[in-house]
């Protein structure tokens, strides 16, 4: 069975534990990159990543974007949104529908 994980700074992601998602607190960019790579090769189908972490990981995220699995979903952290996640949803909609309907 596939699993769900969330990667980000400890205080933002810990609450996900309560709903049964596996939590991986990271601090540095390098650490985050390694964690995401490890999760991707370990049967995780959905990986939530906080925007604060994702903003420095463009290349890694782009790489998994082209793969079928895992789906990397950006979420805002407890310090607010950087609008990267929403931008990606808009881009995906545009790709799927042909025009940005949002």
């Amino acid at each position: 069975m596939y699993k769900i994980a969330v990667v980000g700074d400890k205080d933002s992601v810990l609450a996900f534990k309560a709903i049964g998602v596996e939590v991986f607190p990271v601090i540095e960019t390098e650490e985050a990159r390694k964690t995401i790579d490890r999760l991707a090769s370990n049967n995780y189908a959905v990986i939530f990543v906080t925007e604060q972490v994702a903003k420095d990981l463009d290349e890694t995220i782009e790489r998994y974007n082209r793969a079928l699995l895992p789906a990397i979903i950006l979420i805002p952290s407890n310090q607010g949104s950087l609008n990267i996640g929403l931008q990606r949803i808009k881009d995906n909609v545009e790709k799927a529908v042909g025009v940005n309907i949002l």
Partner: protein
Amino acid sequence: MDKLIYTQAISRLKVLETRLIERTKMDRMIDASSAEEAMKILQESEYSIHLGKIKRAEEYEVVLKDELKRIYSLMYEVTPVKQLIDIMSLRYDYHNIKVLLKAKELKTPLDHLLIDVGTIPTEKMKVYLENEDYTDFNPIMREGIEKTLIRYRNDLDPQMIDINLDAYMYKHMVSQADELGEGFISKFLKISIDLINLKTMFRVKKQNKEKDFLETVILQGGILDKDVFMNSLNDSMDNLAQKLSYTDYYNILRLSVEDYLKTGKINTFEKLSDDFIMEYIKKSKFMSFGPEPLLAYLTAKETEIKNIRIIMVGKLNKVAPESIRERLRETYV
């Protein structure tokens, strides 16, 4: 018991009390520009010896854990009566028991959650619980573990592990305090139990739980009788506060209920009840004999660790200084 046996320990602790982090230093930490800067201020305190172990401010928990360990080993070194410190460190034993029971029953490793400051070393505790060998345990602790396991295996609700063991923990602490026969410590426990029960009331009412549930979570042994709580389940918190207007808790209840009605949060109550305990503990500031100052120093130190945690979490998450200051507990010095 002879109060003079504590004299040497007290004079030593009075010196150490001067090294507690005072309010002004806490304020400087709160106003620091970043978590790293706040950490640097700790360099000027007793915490400096642990700072070499960490590279980043995010690892502050390591420092706090080491300091807690150091304080307990120090307390065991200075105290002439081991039982006195046992009362306080029992809380960590029960914490470890909870962690290990859950790890065992849920078959997940949770070792990183263990805190090695209890009366029983965690390694030993692990072996005992693994083999279900409770011969070395105090009878109350043993009964607690056995009853908890039976209950848990019956309805498979992990929350029951916490609820059951908490009840036994306070029973155990009270029985140790009774054996010691020190009024100050017994009252300290009674106040703690009352405050926990009041907090439970807030939460039970917020979650609209049944009377049966309340019955299992209200602790016995406080100044306020269990019936006071059982009979007020259907009252509003406002009414409960009025009912308790004859007690010392009225003031903090009144203020917390006000905030609770406005925000639905019990943060104020948690802070005020910590402050209430601190106020009680401060009475021992000028005592030169008896066990009071030992308990006071330990509580002062635990509060200090809690405060540093509040500051560091706040700093790392960029919480506004005013909000951090509001959450900070009353300090001993």
